[in-house]
């Protein structure tokens, strides 16, 4: 067995309910840092060979000899919430083209944290666009590098990234476990609020 396996900490035998949250954003925005700040295991990386998205041809493992493939790695961590619930946090970049793996990853997720860097508008827009299309509930977290928090108020960030008034926006230093914990709890709260609204609309 590989080296990674020897350091892997198994889950409790009682774990029955996996839940998951996507952490997305531009390259270098702090996705891996955020997952590592709060994960109970050293973040792991898995490789998936996947198809380059063509027009509606990506159907998982179906034979498609004409398609080109690329390898995409995504990293993830884990938090045991109680005896049954285990939360998986997975980081995936926002700018890749749509493909079956993304769909499979996002299906059934509680939601997404979109990490933004005020020095990288393009990466931020790409990630926002992606979660919108995946129809995932999300919140936007500004990871302030250097003095970016002093330079930009949250109102200014909301306006410049065109973040919907109903979407939570907060600051989150990806290196700080307490801030990461708060962002995760805020995302769950947001999902709960959306479910309540849905229920009220029926």
């Amino acid at each position, binding site marked *: 067995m590989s080296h*990674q*396996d020897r350091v892997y900490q198994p889950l409790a035998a009682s774990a029955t309910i996996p839940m998951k949250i996507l952490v997305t954003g531009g390259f270098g925005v702090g996705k891996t840092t955020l997952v590592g700040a709060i994960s109970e295991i050293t973040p792991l990386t898995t490789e998936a060979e996947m198809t380059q998205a063509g027009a509606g041809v990506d159907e998982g493992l179906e034979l498609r000899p004409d398609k080109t493939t690329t390898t995409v790695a995504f990293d993830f961590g884990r938090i045991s919430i109680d005896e049954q619930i285990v939360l998986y946090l997975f980081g995936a970049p926002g700018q890749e083209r749509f493909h079956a793996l993304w769909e499979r990853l996002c299906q059934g997720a509680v939601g997404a944290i979109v990490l933004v860097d005020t020095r990288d508008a393009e990466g931020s827009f790409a990630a926002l666009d992606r979660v919108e299309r995946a129809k995932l509930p999300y919140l936007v977290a500004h990871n302030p590098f250097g003095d970016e928090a002093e330079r930009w108020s949250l109102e200014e960030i909301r306006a410049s990234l065109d973040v919907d008034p109903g979407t939570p926006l907060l600051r989150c230093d990806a290196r700080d476990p307490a801030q990461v914990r708060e962002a995760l709890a805020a995302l769950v709260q947001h999902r*709960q609020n959306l479910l309540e609204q849905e229920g009220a609309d029926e």
Partner: protein
Amino acid sequence: MIDPDVPDGLYMIVGGRSGTSLRLDPFTLVVTERSDTTGLTLEQADIVRLCERPITPAEISACLTIPLGAVTILLADLIDQGHVSLRSVGRPTRRSADPSAFSSPADDRQLLEKLRVGLINLAL
């Protein structure tokens, strides 16, 4: 023929198999049902051992450094043979007439509240 999710070199591991209807969530829990690894390939035996405690395909892939697509195919065989099973989660949806439809834990208000409170109280 090329299977899009399985690189050429992996045909050794997956026994030349390509194509399966199993669309597995990388974060679903898998557990061992039958520990006897007689007749299994090395990789399959490794998976059966790992699944003695609940584990996800993503974790299996990372631990054994086997790409996710290949893990999925290996798991499909192991499930067919009754060596491992998926821990079913969620409850039947009330909205759906299809009894096999299960709701996601992410739509379950009670579970979301447990998750939120668990996060707030998480010792760092």
